[in-house]
């Protein structure tokens, strides 16, 4: 560690430029990762919500609602259906507003509409089901979430593509700057490298100090980027909490685990830190290998 710090101090301008580029790349990577995880969490949440919700007028008789339900069930286009009566709706309302007695006093079961929550077998059936429901008597409103899902998917796709292009650019820029910095350091240590080679040093022995330095820079830059993110997050937390009030817990569906992304928690922040640290170290090692392979000719 002492030797790494000494070596970094001997080339302060190169070290600073490499560090700043890495820091900038990793900070933006962290923001991209968290934004993408958050949007993916929202998508997962929305996909688990009813895809079509139809609200009936309060005076619509249950028999009429059941007729519509049975027609839909027998259409072969519906995966499942759930009837929410006025009584059920009131219970849900009570549960949601249990801490607000004033709101509880103002509302009774009579004024809440009965509804049907419908999950289609295929997304393609959704417009057809929605159109059918709009034509039925006693229907007050049809909420059709395909638009929201589509827009979110489009947004995530744009973010994924745009983010990837932007990230590749950052990766390239960081790698070039780090490679150049390493080359400069190689030039400074030319004599030492020559002597080491003649004494019988292996390629990995010659590369080792450069790689260790790069790993140190990568870890330091990712740690600082993460700290900056935490500072910004805690500064904006009151605003975010009030703005995203009512947003349920969001999860990222991984193959073997559901990672909670909102509200932010220790595990998600740890994963985010590990993600950027991994990328920081990867960029640093890649740049060092490029520099040593091409110009050291070890």
């Amino acid at each position, binding site marked *: 560690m002492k030797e790494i710090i000494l070596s970094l101090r001997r080339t302060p301008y190169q070290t600073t430029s490499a560090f700043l580029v890495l820091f900038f790349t990793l900070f933006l990577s962290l923001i991209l990762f968290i934004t993408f995880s958050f949007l993916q969490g929202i998508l997962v949440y929305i996909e688990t919500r009813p895809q079509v919700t139809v609200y009936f007028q309060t005076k619509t008789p249950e028999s009429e609602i059941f007729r519509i339900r049975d027609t839909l069930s027998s259409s072969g286009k519906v995966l499942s259906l759930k009837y929410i009566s006025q009584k059920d709706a009131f219970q849900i309302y009570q549960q949601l507003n249990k801490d607000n007695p004033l709101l509880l006093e103002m509302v009774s079961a009579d004024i809440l509409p009965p509804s049907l929550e419908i999950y289609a077998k295929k997304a393609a059936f959704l417009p057809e089901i929605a159109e059918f429901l709009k034509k039925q008597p006693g229907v007050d409103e049809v909420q059709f979430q395909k638009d929201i899902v589509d827009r979110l998917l489009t947004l995530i796709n744009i973010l994924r593509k745009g983010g990837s292009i932007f990230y590749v650019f950052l990766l390239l820029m960081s790698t070039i700057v780090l490679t150049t910095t390493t080359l400069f350091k190689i030039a400074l240590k030319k*004599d*030492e490298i*020559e*002597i*080491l080679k*003649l*004494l*019988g*040093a*292996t390629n990995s022995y010659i590369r080792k100090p450069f790689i260790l330095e790069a790993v140190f820079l990568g870890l330091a830059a990712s740690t600082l980027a993460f700290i900056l993110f935490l500072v910004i997050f805690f500064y904006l937390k009151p605003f975010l909490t009030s703005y995203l009030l009512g947003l349920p817990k969001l999860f990222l569906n991984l193959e073997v685990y559901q990672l909670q992304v909102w509200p932010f928690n220790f595990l998600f922040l740890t994963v985010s830190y590990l993600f950027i640290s991994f990328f920081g170290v990867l960029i640093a090692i890649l740049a060092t290998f490029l520099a040593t392979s091409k110009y050291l000719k070890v």
Partner: protein
Amino acid sequence: MIIFEKVTKKFPLGNLALDNISFEITNNEFVFFVGPSGAGKTTILKLILREYLPTEGSITIDGWEISSKNFNQTVTLRRKIGMIFQDFKILNDKTVFENVSLSLMLTNTAFSKIKKEVEEALKLVGLDGKEKVFPQQLSAGELQRVAIARAIIGEREILLADEPTGNLDPKTSWEIMKIFKKLEGKRTIIIATHNTDIVNSLQKRVIVLKEGRLIKDLKKGGYEI
């Protein structure tokens, strides 16, 4: 045993550094390569170190044909060889101890062993007690002693010296040669030099080169071209 068999070395631009050279050096032998500048002395040392490959012919060291392009033991070979340069090639940002210990550091030797060997090597070259000194604080003669200590540490069997007294005054040159004398019989010593006095006085084997050709190989010779 070092065997050069009909070795020719041509550089890419066409200049001929060595022309059909053959000789054998037995283990623990003390040999001088002499000749004017451009005779091919340094080229021979670089071929032994496998810095260069011969254009023609073969070079064998302890049964290894190091001139083969398929030879993949360069690291192991170089760990058998200690090299001393005219310009010392001592690292200015490292102490005497760090410079000398370089040879052992790269073989993952235990620090206690490194410390013991460095102390012994420095004692042999007369620099004991100067472990913590930086090269800027040393004279040219002392720097060459550091280079010798670095070259002999780690039980290196072959010692190559390229004009080891080239940058030194006569008195210091003799002191350096005394160190080589101390090492005689313990390892193979090959010295490329211009120093007439030293070669004539020591009466060791002398291989005389001129324009890349071997002119004479004298068992107990002097400097004559």
